């Protein structure tokens, strides 16, 4: 009986606080994306032709976001029936956009205005077996082009 009560409480906590955190994070992401709009990112390997008076630096940004209890339960239940795991999709979207923003921030601090050859890596830190907390890490990296000051 107590197991059930504990379980429901954890789920409710996970859901409420998870949703609040997610909404806040997404809002912050959208604001900052407007802010960093002028730092261009491309996944192409070659910088624009004709550009030569630039320094290039490898820049990267990473973030680790943890899974909340509610998402874990839904994932466990889905694992029996199969299909799309929408609870994790929002988590990964947040993580990716945050990682790219952090990379842009690093680039901006160096004085760059463009990042080329952007690549992303996703990894799962301790997938959440046996009561461990599951979390996802996303790392975004690319080459920043910094105009040389004359």
């Amino acid at each position, binding site marked *: *009986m107590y197991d059930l009560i504990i379980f429901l409480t954890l789920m409710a906590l996970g859901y409420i606080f998870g949703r609040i955190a997610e909404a806040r994070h997404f809002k912050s992401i959208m604001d900052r994306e407007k802010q960093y709009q002028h730092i261009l990112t491309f996944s192409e390997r070659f910088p624009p032709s004709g550009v030569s008076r630039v320094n290039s630096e490898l820049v990267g940004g990473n973030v680790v976001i943890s899974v909340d209890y509610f998402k874990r*339960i*839904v994932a*466990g239940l889905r694992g*029996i029936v199969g299909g799309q795991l*929408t609870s994790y999709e929002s988590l990964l979207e947040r993580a990716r956009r945050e990682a790219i923003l952090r990379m842009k921030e690093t680039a901006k601090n160096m004085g760059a205005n463009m990042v080329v050859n952007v690549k992303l890596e996703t990894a799962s830190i301790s997938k959440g077996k046996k009561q461990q907390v*599951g979390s996802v890490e996303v790392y975004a990296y690319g080459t920043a082009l910094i105009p040389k000051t004359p």
Partner: protein
Amino acid sequence: MEYENRTVPEGINVSKENPLKDFFILAFGLGAAVVTLVVVLSFLAGCLVQFVPFETEVMLTEKFSFSEFMESEMHEEKQNEQQKAQQLEEEKKQQKITAYLQNLANQLATAQQLPEGMFITTHYIDTDTVNAFATLGGNIIIFRGLIEKLPNENALAMVMAHEIAHIKHRDPMVAAGRGLTVALALASLTGFGDGQVAQQLLNNVGLITTLSFNRNQEEKADAEALNTLLEYYGHAKGAEVLFEILENEQAGSTPPLFLSTHPLNENRINTIKHYHQQQSPQNELTALPELF
């Protein structure tokens, strides 16, 4: 060549569906599927058990010594004390008690009209546990702790008749078969992947469903036992004493009905009292022999 970054619209990689709705559909859908599966498997187990003959059950259990299993610790204590004369007397007393219980069991079995080939073997365990149960092979185990609490033979006969009824209905075999198939089915469904908590959840749902089958079995055994008492003594007085004692023991800590393996004590007492109203009230109770 122009280079620019255009803003991508929201909502392509993230679905707008409410996660709570998703969760409820999943949970209730899976819960209903598990309940159906367990009910179907339980019925199958109940039907198929008729094909396992009683002789097989006896064969499985005859090599197993109940008293040795239960009292292995008690025997060690007695050796340390080295009071062999006292131990001999204890053993004689135990044999007399077992003989008395076996005799009572045989008479009640005849009154209950056990099918051909079925027989009861009673085992008396000398510990304080307040319990009695029936298991495979027609074996009934009764503990000293329970008998000490009973005021007369009628209450003891109620306990005995109830356990004999379980054996008559082949309940131990059905419970074993059902437990096995349900556990296997649930494990193969949920056993893989990260679903630790989901696994426990669905296992609990399956368990709660099987409990209602258990309660059904207990009610049937109660009814059969009352009829047996009537047959043997001519009346069923004294039967509700057992449940009144159990109710006192458990005072304040009873789980809700849907989590119990047995019907509520209150309900069982009321059933018996209702039964009494249909009999004559002027009957005598039989006392227990002085062995206890």
